[in-house]
């Protein structure tokens, strides 16, 4: 039997009948590599909307991580660098220190930012690097096939915790954003989501603040966590995954601002 090679072409997707809304100007035409239902695309989009609305394309430098968003530079139409796993805050430090007038952001997942890159994360924030860090927390390693992340909830199943994360063996899920908020070097720390129109609007507002603070050279690091889903890794349908996230992730990782203008929110 002849093998049928299925290749999705851009023309197959971008057709007049599919055009229900306009693509964000600073997103490229490349087809997203993310699973349907994943929050990465929305997070990318609102960052690029903010960069466009603030007129920052010409002075923005982004740093991508290792993880599902390893190819983020294919989708965001700004100058970008690809970091080694966990090292994005160090790259961003090198850029910002030598180009204090550029706008520098990192985009990192939970394994990248809160496991292998914990030292870089904590120290960049503790030095108060004047950068913006966007942290996507979906409690799992998506790209490598659904292994346990530092943020995986207790009892949550993953391919390396097939019977659920057990504290006795794997310790506790790490609330790194709470840690970052406690550091005197952080200026704006917030936790958001992007799974409903309302949360997208709030998240975009937070990202805008994280970029505006940097632009205005407010002293300290701007840190935006986005609690997101991973329907593939969680082995759920997208709608189920979002519901599961609301019922399980949000109670442990409650949404809202933790630190604004360098002051902890009570």
């Amino acid at each position, binding site marked *: 039997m002849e093998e049928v090679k299925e290749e999705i072409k851009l023309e197959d997707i971008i057709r007049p009948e599919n055009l229900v809304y306009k693509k964000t100007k600073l997103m490229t035409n490349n087809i997203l590599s993310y699973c349907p239902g994943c929050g990465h695309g929305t997070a990318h989009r609102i960052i690029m909307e903010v960069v466009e609305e603030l007129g920052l394309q010409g002075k923005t430098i982004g740093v991508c991580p290792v993880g599902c968003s390893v*190819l983020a530079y294919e989708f965001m139409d700004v*100058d970008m660098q690809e970091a*080694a796993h966990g090292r994005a805050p160090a790259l961003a430090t*090198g850029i910002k*220190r030598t180009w204090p007038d*550029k706008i520098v952001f990192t985009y990192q997942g939970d394994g990248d930012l809160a496991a292998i890159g914990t030292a*870089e994360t904590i120290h960049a924030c503790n030095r108060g690097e004047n950068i913006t860090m966007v942290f996507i927390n979906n409690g799992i390693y998506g790209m490598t096939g659904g292994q346990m992340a530092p943020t995986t909830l207790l009892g949550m199943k993953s391919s390396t915790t097939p019977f659920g994360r057990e504290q006795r063996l794997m310790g506790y899920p790490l609330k790194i954003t709470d840690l970052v908020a406690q550091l005197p070097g952080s200026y704006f720390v917030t936790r958001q989501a992007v799974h409903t129109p309302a949360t997208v609007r709030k998240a975009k507002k937070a990202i805008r603040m994280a970029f505006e603070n940097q632009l205005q050279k407010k002293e300290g690091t701007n840190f935006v966590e986005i609690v997101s889903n991973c329907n593939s890794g969680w082995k759920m349908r997208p709608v189920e995954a979002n519901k599961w996230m609301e019922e399980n992730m949000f109670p442990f990782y409650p949404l809202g601002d933790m630190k604004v203008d360098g002051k902890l929110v009570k």
Partner: protein
Amino acid sequence: MGELRLMKGNEAIGEAAIRAGVDGYFGYPITPQSEVIEYLTSEKPEERTGMVVLQAESELASINMVYGAAATGKKVMTTSSSPGISLMMEGLSYIAGAELPCVVVNVVRGGPGLGTIQPSQADYFQATKGGGHGDYRLIVLAPASVQEMSDFVPLAFKLAFKYRNPVMILSDGVIGQMMEKVELFDPVPRWTEEEIIKMSPWATTGKPATRERNIITSLDLDPSRQEKHNIHLQEKYRRVEKEEVRFEEIACDDADYLMVAYGSSARIAQKVLQLARAQGIRLGLLRPITLYPFPAQPIRELLGHVKGILALELSSGQMVEDVRLAVEGKVPVEHYGRMGGMIFTPDEIVNVMKKTFLGE
């Protein structure tokens, strides 16, 4: 004549960095090279030239700060010693893969592991054969004096930008710690933003409307494209091998026997040469200045009259493999080394020479 100063090798690196118009130094303290960052911070380079000096939280961070800034076309560097350089291997592999210019100084100490803080040349393989993962090369310069610690900083940056490749200055605890007279070169200004954009159009300096976005990455999941990238890198390394070999010959013209030694070993070998010549032994010294590319052809050209070669290294014998590859079995190539931070004396080597080649 430039300004003369009595300096430690490590201090000379720091002063040369400021004078070479370096934009950023990112480092982490480790013996025997901590004087570099101490000198830099005490010199207030931010006031002198606007140069950034930052003490990172680890060598992992410092090499990746170098990556980030190098990817924007800035002149940046770091220094460390053996265990710290091992931690930088991940970053160096990425930097080589992404083809970024930068300078890394290794003031080598004895290993393996935490080893000792005394001088050694046991990081030769790591420096010249890759060190990190994947097929890549660093251009490696081996200073043998405090003067060269200073002079090789601008040379290293020149090569780094010429080839878009990381350059390592492979020094050791002797050269880093000893004090000598140095003639300092005249300072050059740091590059302006316009100069950087013109010189490094690939750099991530922020996308203007006039060009496509710049991406700095070592990733390409498509194996055929990744192979093409690797072929491109290998072609670059062949070009480096053809054009950048540097070495020094002392008394090689009439030599019956040849020493090949670099860095501090070459300094000791100079005394050996004097002692041997005084005893009527026609001994020569070939000092590789670039360890990669290795001066294989210059060694081959001496084989008409050289009857035997002694590779001197403060290691169990690493560079000697490159000497043997160059010589292709045409004359005997022997190795003599000390390890773990011990250093050979000139007399010790004269005796080894006589025993090895003269049967005494």
